[in-house]
């Protein structure tokens, strides 16, 4: 153990602990901007500088390891003064102007700069911003970049490269002109961006945000000729109360339904319904393909970030993907047919809105293979903004139930929200589909949790033990694909683009207080608590899914089901 003193407090830490971590262990908060847990150390913002052994040169605490006998001052007069000046410089580079003011910023309520200002106790601002006049990047269906707000902390660069294993961003130009951009300035829509939106979560200043669909949704809601329905993804309910002050993981399903009804939606439905349906279609496909030993392993297809990833980087494996559409797109396809027929609504007048924890879903809804089924995709953040803008505090509402037709789901649909959930849900039903009997213990622990790669073997009958794998976060997806390419055998593998699965999606609320790991853990606990509280926990038990097959689709994998609920993929390769 290393013994040192931080602000005169004796601290004992493991060898290799940085001064920043050591200070945190001693309950001393040192402000940072370019630092992020799980990313490599950049040492650019210098806000975390501290005095070490009274040396003249201040040291970046994020990068310096604790040593025996060090005397560290984290808030000495000199450090505080330097920090204030640094902050003045940062704000001047952030370009606060009439056009780019805090009030319209995507991060108005969760601005890291503002938090840091508070942490530093900033009481002066003597510099005028120097306008950089850079163009917005509007090339993507999912993510907008506003480079004038960028302070070049490079967290997006590191997130994309280190956590997602892609690296669409890089620095270009030099000195004060240094910017973050995409390859050859092509724009996010024209490079190998998977639209996962993890960069948004990492951006401290709101220079990255989703492509807003809020205006379109407001217009539809105000248009009396339109019949507007909404679906809510599994991961939204455990996060949507956060912007209203609730803890991550707070389950707010019923309150969310009530809020959406107050907003004026004509039908409030659950993507979990089509998650159950996905299990029926994908589960049937897996059983068939395993039986015929055809294009194994089957790879899941519900994460649109993962889909774009495999289309770019492993196009030779597209045949392994399940052909089942994602729950969002199954919902859209059924809404414009089954729902419209049943309700007697002209599909032309029907507007389908999704609320998703995801920015890639915006891109997915625009894919030529299925464009028009879902009209607008709101992120969890956008939905919360709309609810607030309607004067509603979600936490104050009495819970209400989803509308019936496409609003009933089992616990299997709920757990789609977390990494391993699709796999667990599929196994619960695959067992039934193969053996005709119910799986006894349906809590399949090995596929749960935040390990990047998970594997399990599930005995089905005497001939068959299903070998399954789970990967979340695209750098783990890459590792999994390399394992598969290297000959490791699987029957079925689940992939989620975002760390933790959809609960950690790029469209989820951004927590300023909690670490991302803690936020994920709490949301994950919320998800599994919903599942375990439900009577029906297997997708094939869903009475409304059964009714859908009886009245409309026939049986899983039928011709009609294929036409509506399955899709093709586009080999994209590298640009």
């Amino acid at each position, binding site marked *: 153990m290393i013994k040192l003193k931080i602000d005169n407090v004796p601290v004992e830490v493991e060898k290799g602990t940085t001064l920043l971590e050591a200070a945190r262990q001693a309950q001393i908060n040192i402000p940072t901007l370019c630092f992020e847990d799980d990313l490599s*150390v950049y*040492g*650019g*913002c*210098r806000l975390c*500088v501290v005095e070490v052994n009274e040396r*003249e*040169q*201040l040291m*970046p605490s994020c*990068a*310096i*390891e604790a040593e025996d006998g060090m005397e560290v001052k984290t808030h000495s007069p*000199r450090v505080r*003064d*330097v920090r204030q*000046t*640094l902050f003045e*410089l*940062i704000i*001047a*580079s952030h370009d606060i102007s009439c056009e780019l003011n805090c009030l319209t910023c995507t991060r108005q309520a969760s601005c890291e700069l503002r938090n840091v200002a508070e942490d530093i106790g900033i009481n002066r601002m*003597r*510099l005028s911003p*120097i306008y950089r006049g850079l163009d917005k990047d509007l090339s993507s269906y999912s993510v907008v970049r506003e480079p004038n707000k960028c*302070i*070049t902390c490079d967290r997006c660069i590191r997130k994309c490269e280190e956590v997602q294993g892609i690296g669409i961003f890089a*620095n270009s*130009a*030099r*000195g*004060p*002109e*240094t910017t973050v951009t995409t390859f050859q300035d092509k724009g996010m829509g024209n490079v190998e961006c998977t639209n996962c939106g993890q960069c948004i979560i990492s951006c401290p200043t709101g220079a990255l945000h989703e492509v807003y669909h809020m205006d379109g949704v407001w217009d539809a809601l105000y248009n009396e000729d339109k019949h507007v329905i909404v679906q809510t993804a599994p991961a939204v309910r455990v996060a949507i109360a956060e912007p209203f002050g609730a803890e991550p993981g707070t389950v707010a399903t019923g309150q969310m339904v009530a809020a959406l009804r107050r907003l004026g939606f004509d039908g409030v439905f659950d993507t979990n319904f089509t998650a159950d349906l996905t299990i029926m279609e994908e589960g049937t496909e897996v059983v068939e393909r395993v039986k015929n030993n055809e294009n194994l392993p089957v790879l899941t297809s519900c994460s649109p970030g993962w889909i774009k990833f495999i289309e770019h980087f492993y196009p030779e494996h597209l045949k392994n993907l399940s052909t089942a559409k994602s729950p969002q797109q199954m919902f859209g396809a059924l809404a414009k047919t089954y729902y419209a027929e049943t309700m007697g609504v002209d599909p032309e007048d029907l507007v389908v809105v999704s609320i998703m924890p995801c920015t890639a879903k915006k891109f997915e809804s625009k894919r030529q293979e299925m464009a028009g089924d879902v009209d607008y995709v709101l992120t969890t953040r956008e939905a919360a903004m709309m609810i607030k803008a309607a004067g509603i505090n979600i936490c104050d509402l009495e819970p209400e139930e989803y509308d019936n037709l496409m609003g009933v789901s089992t616990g299997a649909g709920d757990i789609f929200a977390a990494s391993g959930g699709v796999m667990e849900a599929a196994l619960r039903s695959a067992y039934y589909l193969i053996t005709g009997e119910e799986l006894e213990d349906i809590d399949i622990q090995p596929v749960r949790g935040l390990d990047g790669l998970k594997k399990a073997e599930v005995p089905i009958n005497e001939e068959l033990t299903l070998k399954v794998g789970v990967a979340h976060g695209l750098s783990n997806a890459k590792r999994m694909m390399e394992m598969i390419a290297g000959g490791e055998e699987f029957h079925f593998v689940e992939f989620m683009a975002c760390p933790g699965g959809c609960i950690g999606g790029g469209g989820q609320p951004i927590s300023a207080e909690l670490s991302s790991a803690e936020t994920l853990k709490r949301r994950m606990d919320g998800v599994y608590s919903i599942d375990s509280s439900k009577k029906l926990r297997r997708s094939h038990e869903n009475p409304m899914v059964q009714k859908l097959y009886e009245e409309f689709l026939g049986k899983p994998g039928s011709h009609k089901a294929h036409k509506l609920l399955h899709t093709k993929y586009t080999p994209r390769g590298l640009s």
Partner: protein
Amino acid sequence: MVKERKFLKGPRLRDVSTYDFPGLKKAFSLGPDQIIQQISDARLLGRGGAGFPTGTKWDLALQQQGERKYMICNADEGEPGTFKDRYLLEERPLKVLEGLIIGAYAVGASHGFIYIRGEYTEPIKILRTILEEAREEGVLGEDIFGSGFDFDVKLVRGAGAYVCGDETSLINSIEGKRGISRIKPPYPIQKGLYDQPTVVNNVESLACAAEIINQGAGEFAALGTDNSRGTKLISVSGDINIPEVFEVEFGSCTLNEIIEELGGGVRRGKEPKFVIPGGLSTAALLPDELNCSYSYEGIESAGSSLGSGAIIVVGESRDLVDILLKVSRFYMDETCGTCFPCREGNKQINYMLSQHRNKKFTSQEVELIEDIGEAIAAAARCGLGQTSLSLINSIFAKFSEELIEEVIQVD
């Protein structure tokens, strides 16, 4: 009368086939430990500007374990006003190469690089030829002079960034990455080029090392003062009658004597307005501060530093604001843009200075410039940033009457 003391200077030395490499041959007979001992005994300080003891650097590198080690000659001479490495590269390049091979042998490096400033077209040509000839003559390659030591050198041309003179940025540049500094620690000695132990030495340091081994540590250590041993190549320029590279023994003369006697005095005038004693990153000295002894400690006691040995004389007729603007423009253009204080600070300072043509500065403005300077000096990531405001701040401090509005006290 001050005279040059020629320890490094000498007749042109560029023909590999006729040069005997006496230092290198002696080095092979001494072995690594003895070489490092000699360099340490000579108390050679790095000549690039930072003044780190070369013997210590080599000793630390020798002790490092790695798949392979690298030895790099930093010939990216970019400090404004500095052109003494150019002299060595053009006139005495074999001494530099000799020092590089000696260093590599001492620390156990198998691969060498000379990273040279891209605009140095003449030295580049010369070095290309020399490296080819050295391979032909067996001075580079396998089993050099039958010593069993294998070593080869690659010449890498810089792309024009001043910051690549910083050793970690230089290493990034060789690797084909952006020329930006790395966080230290780890130091290049521990984890440098391609993450292997790497020694980066200035051109003049290597030439010194070759001469120390050749002529003996005693010879070198007998020159100079206690804290500044040997001689120094100085680049004298600016408003001076004889701009030139001179070699002086530390402590043998004052700055004033260098300007008056070696440099032939200030051009078109008696006294300079001020003198920059060690390159653009060092504080200005006024005429009455020039009677300091020319040594690391002498110039420090006068309130500046010796830096790279670039003495820039600024004549009386020069416009201070114009100089401030040019200096700040240089740093704004040359900051690598990685750390916020250096990137934003130098931009803001240039902006503030550019708003003040033909006007005096208010004391609030000067305070702001000082605060930014303090933040950059204390918190920037590399030497470029840390010293970028030394000159500007010293000019404000020393010419306050000329630059700053008088504050009228109202009772």
